């Protein structure tokens, strides 16, 4: 049974595409046939993060309009077997995505793929709504920062009301919090919302915390999803996230600061936060 996952956030720039790329790679490395779709029509970027920007010939909208077949538009990933990318169109026509078109493409993909990852655009316009509409699971990418948390809550409201599962009265879309750009040091200093703060407010199950990391920019510079940088903290955190998503029990890492023992003696508060 194919599972459709939407990577969403409301706010832009929090790490949706980075997460989509790494999640797709993570699932495919485990042998699941995976496709990742860029829903950000007009602002295609997943191709850059995945390092396949020069191989885009046909895109999502071409397929919807019948100008190309899925086989022609799917780009085979060069890092991992069993992974395909469907690029967004660069058209400025904002009506290019239709509900029927998206449904038809997802249906066709469901015949061959285990996981379909929908990389949502920012905002709550049509692209974002269609990215979540057919989803079974949602990964809500949030930064420990006021505007991101507020937008995530708004997205949770939409997931509960504006999705196919909600409309058909089926079991709701399963929600997973992915807290990115987390800096345990700034949390310890009291200058960043802690994991438990965000948990208190959004109250959805935590999938993983991705630490603020230099590896993310390096990964996007070179077009290799950060999960493949196995030495890096962010890469390992994404690896854990995928494992947890698949039901494995993996302890959370990168949540608290590595403090010297003499400092740890005096900081009871920090432990509470975890």
């Amino acid at each position, binding site marked *: 049974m194919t599972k459709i996952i939407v990577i969403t956030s409301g706010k832009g720039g929090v790490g949706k595409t980075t997460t989509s790329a790494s999640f797709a790679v993570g699932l495919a490395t485990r042998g699941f046939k995976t496709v990742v779709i860029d829903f950000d029509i007009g602002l295609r970027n997943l191709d850059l993060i995945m390092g396949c920007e020069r191989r885009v010939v046909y895109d999502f909208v071409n397929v919807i309009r019948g100008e190309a077949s899925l086989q022609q538009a799917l780009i085979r990933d060069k890092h991992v077997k069993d992974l395909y990318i469907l690029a967004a169109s660069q058209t400025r026509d904002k009506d290019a995505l239709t509900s029927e078109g998206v449904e038809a493409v997802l249906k066709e993909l469901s015949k061959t793929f285990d996981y379909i990852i929908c990389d949502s655009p920012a905002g709550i316009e049509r692209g974002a709504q269609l990215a979540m509409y057919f989803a079974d699971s949602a990964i809500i990418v949030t930064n420990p*920062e*006021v505007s991101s*948390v*507020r937008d995530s*809550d*708004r997205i949770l*409201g939409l997931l509960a*009301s504006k999705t196919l599962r909600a409309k058909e009265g089926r079991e709701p879309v399963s929600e997973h919090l992915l807290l990115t750009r987390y800096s345990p040091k700034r*949390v310890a*200093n*009291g*200058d*960043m*919302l*802690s994991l438990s*703060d965000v948990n*208190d*407010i959004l109250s959805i199950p935590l999938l993983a915390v991705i630490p603020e990391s230099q590896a993310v920019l390096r990964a996007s510079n070179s077009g290799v999803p950060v999960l493949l940088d196995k030495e890096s903290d962010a890469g390992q955190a994404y690896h854990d996230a995928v494992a947890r998503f698949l039901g494995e029990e993996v302890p959370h890492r990168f949540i608290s600061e590595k403090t010297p023992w003499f400092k740890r003696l005096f900081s009871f508060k920090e432990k509470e936060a975890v």
Partner: protein
Amino acid sequence: MIIQDQLNKILNYFRRPEATAQCAKERLQIIIAHERDERGNPDYLPSLQKDLLDVIAKYVKIKRDDVKIELERQDGCSILELNIVLPSAQEKS
């Protein structure tokens, strides 16, 4: 005075800036609770509120804030609660 200013500057240098995360959390809790209340409201509510206000204003001098519309949901039905504070008799005359 100048000495005091200098002293303050030196003290501020060593003082840790106030932690702001707690403030962020409290602000978020308030605004999100408010937005969740409104989440299920139908889209026409604000325009209904405006129309009602216009009708009432035809007869009584009234300020925008004097009309409160709330939609309460109980299982199976919604109750539209309309609260209008009419100006007192003295103001009328």
